[in-house]
């Protein structure tokens, strides 16, 4: 049985609140991965379809390095994860740990979830670690998003519950106990 862990030895997911929205906007602006609306419109729109949203904190100093979320919970048994971390603050694998925790939370919180979707572009793939290369890619939508002055393909990855139980959940349990080193390749290694 999965437990919806919200922290490892070094990283904590804290439920995000309305007062976190300006910081989230700032992280997204600095990442340059979206063509954002103005802050007021963003604040109005950002919660639509969101089932859980977390601020990602470093436990040693309480610093927020980014945000993760789970959205669009479907009766078909899937949910989408989003994660955005400040590149200057998310060194040492805290972003990868937050991603593991968020995926784990999706499967633990909602028993009906069969798979967790993650969509991204080649602009973000390097920062997510080589582990992403072993998560099955289900689809690619060519030239779908425009940012940083060009069109990008959107890649849809799907993590199934079975695959998570087999490997990811064990890694999260070890991260929680502090026996797994933070490593951007955590998603790649088996349990």
């Amino acid at each position: 049985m999965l437990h919806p862990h919200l922290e490892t030895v070094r990283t904590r997911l804290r439920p995000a609140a309305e007062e976190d929205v300006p910081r989230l906007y700032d992280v997204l602006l600095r990442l340059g991965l979206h063509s954002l609306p103005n802050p007021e419109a963003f604040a109005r729109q950002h919660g639509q379809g969101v089932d859980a949203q977390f601020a990602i904190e470093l436990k040693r100093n309480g610093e927020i390095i980014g945000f993760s979320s789970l959205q669009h919970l479907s009766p078909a048994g899937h949910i989408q994860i989003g994660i955005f971390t400040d590149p200057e603050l998310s060194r040492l694998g805290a972003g990868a740990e937050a991603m593991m925790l968020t995926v784990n939370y999706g499967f633990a919180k909602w028993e009906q979830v069969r798979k967790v979707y993650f969509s991204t572009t080649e602009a973000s793939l390097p920062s997510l670690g080589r582990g992403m290369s072993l998560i099955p890619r289900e689809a690619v939508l060519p030239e779908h998003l425009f940012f940083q002055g060009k069109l990008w393909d959107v890649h849809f990855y799907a993590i199934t519950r079975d695959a998570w139980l087999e490997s990811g959940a064990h890694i999260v349990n070890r991260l929680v106990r502090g026996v797994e080193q933070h490593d951007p390749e955590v998603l790649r290694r088996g349990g």
Partner: protein
Amino acid sequence: MIFPHLDVGRTALRCVDPLDSKGAHGFLTEHGSGGGLSHEVLSVLWAVDLGEVAAQFQVEARDTGRVAGLSVLQRLDLNGGHVQAGVFVDPADEEVRSAASALTVNYAFANWSVRKVYVWTVEEDLAELREASEIVRREATLREFVHDGGLLRDLTIFAVYREDWARVVPNLLRRLSRAGAVR
């Protein structure tokens, strides 16, 4: 040049205020034009927020005034250069459905600076654009993405690109304008 035609042959589009998925499903059921489409499926294919609807049309048969269904253009992304079309006419009403699909896609290319028009479906192919099947591209399929009465169905995203549309649309509209020419 692509002109935003609102009628061809025996089919016309009439611009209407947007309905949400529940309202649209009720409308289709009331007019017997849903073709068995469940609300579960329609709610995935339809915009979540009315603010995402760029244009919505009532599909009508010109000769009788009969309401044949709805079509919609939604999730317009001028930055990414795409918009999503949806045409909901009973498949048995094949001539009207083909004509409404062509008019809806054409309206999108005529009115907005988009590179491609998406159509989402849970079907294997895009029967409503069969008349232009040579330019319809299968872009992505999400496996078992839609719950439909206890079954899980794939969601496929098809796309039509502007340059292809501009090439075929004169002949396509000419064919559709001839009553009985549609297969």
